């Protein structure tokens, strides 16, 4: 579905992505793990159109059509079905919970299904229904994560990009969130999950990539990477 070939991206003077190549198949959960500063967030921002591509290709295949995402403006990428849940959740604190969900659906033309989609979100995350009139800034970290995911879902994504959903959350909350991600995937949404918590990510992923300093250094299925000794040592904290 998503194919990235030899991508180079600069942020300011820094050459962050140095020839990244990866692929995400339709319907699967792919995960990208790696240390801080590797460029994972940069990659997601580039896919979403917030950063310009220096060289390389980002290709998106859906419903038989193929498009080069390259330097499309962010609004068109969202319209094409690629929606991101950004790092640090970043809900709109000055809007209510309900308004946050509605703003997620901003791009959609057919406004009638909105109520149904809202209901579906509330079904997935009942706590949001209870808090729907409150300002999003008053929610706890875990609740904000649910809101951020719900907001992304309101856009009816074909490909959902998640940037470090586990950041700053208690382990139990993280498990709930990741279970929800699995549910979303089973319902038909492809997921590209960027995570620092390598173990959890690889456990639910079909395919995994390890990124270090702007390059992909390991690739394989989720299981394979879990067993890979190099990955185990560097990211899973298991002594050789």
């Amino acid at each position: 579905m998503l194919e990235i070939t030899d991508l180079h991206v600069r942020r300011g003077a820094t050459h962050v992505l140095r020839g990244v190549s990866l692929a995400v198949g339709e319907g699967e959960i792919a995960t990208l793990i790696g240390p801080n500063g590797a460029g994972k967030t940069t990659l997601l921002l580039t896919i979403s159109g917030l950063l310009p591509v220096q060289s390389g290709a980002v290709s998106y295949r859906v419903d038989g059509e193929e498009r080069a995402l390259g330097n499309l403006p962010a609004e068109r990428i969202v319209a094409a079905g690629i929606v991101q849940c950004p790092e640090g959740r970043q809900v709109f604190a000055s809007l209510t919970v309900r308004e946050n969900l509605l703003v997620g659906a901003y791009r959609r033309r057919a406004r009638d299904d909105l109520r149904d989609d809202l209901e579906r979100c509330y079904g997935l995350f009942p706590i949001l229904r209870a808090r729907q009139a409150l300002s999003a800034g008053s929610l706890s970290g875990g609740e904000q994560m649910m809101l951020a995911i719900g907001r992304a879902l309101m856009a009816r994504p074909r490909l959902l990009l998640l940037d470090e959903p586990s950041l700053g959350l208690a382990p139990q909350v993280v498990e709930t969130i990741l279970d929800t991600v699995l549910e979303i995937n089973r319902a038909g949404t492809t997921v590209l999950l960027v995570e620092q918590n390598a173990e959890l990510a690889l456990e639910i992923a079909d395919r995994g990539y390890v990124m270090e300093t702007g390059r992909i250094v390991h690739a394989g299925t989720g299981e394979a990477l879990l067993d890979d000794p190099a990955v185990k040592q560097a990211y899973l904290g298991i002594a050789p």
Partner: protein
Amino acid sequence: MSQYYLQQLINGLMLGSLYALVAIGFSMIYGIVRLINFAHGDVLMIGAFATLALVAAGTPWLLVAPVVLLTGVLAGITIEQAVFRPIRGAPQVTGFIATLALSVMIENGGVMLLSPQPRNFLFPDVMRTRVPIGPATVSLTDLVIIATTLVLAGVLVLIVRRTRLGMAMRATAENLPVARLMGINVNRTIMAAFALGSALAAIAGLLWGGRFGQIDPLMGLAPGLKAFVACVIGGVGSIGGAMLGGYLLGLGEVLFVGLLPPEYSGYRDAFVFATLIVVLLVLPNGLLGRSEEERA
């Protein structure tokens, strides 16, 4: 209530309404691009002169207001595209200097093309009728100004709180990159904020000219600066704050002149800016604002 006190109150509310109209637009623009639009006061001037031109051309008064609103919209969009868009992302000081330069250009352009002499400008005679309130009377002009401000402010609040565009503006004002991730076209949204804010400033120009009878190319500078003071008092970035600040400033100015002996009335502008400095130091977020940025 005696005529004198009623008149003072109405003066304060009238002046406050004019300040509020300009301050609301200013606050909307500041909220969304985090830059002081120095040229905002000059849009007031453009609105006043547009009114003069329309009236001179024989346009019926009922049409004048909508056309002036439109003029404001066009002015705002032009300003945004010509100056604000190219410097987006530049440091705050650069933006300030650029809008200051724009203001100088517009004002001197006006002097160049229209001469610095003030022009007279009168509302139709009906506006001078006096409306009885209790034992005293009030000029219709003043009531119209206050009413127009409340109506337009109400409309704007509706737009911001209830429409899709309003939601986009609030989201963009809070977090521009994430607003883009929602699929919001932030360029158009910012342009809309400028359009709406400038429309209000243009109408303020129409009202100002009619109330004070004289317009000149430099008339926008003082209201523009005072609108900034109003926003600081009320809390930058919120419509309610701008209105509150505008009315407090208007009433405060009138009170200042009214209560103190006449030798001190010349100090009213000094009073306004001294208030600005005090508020910036003591209450940096204003009365209603949120603490989002460092000012001190």
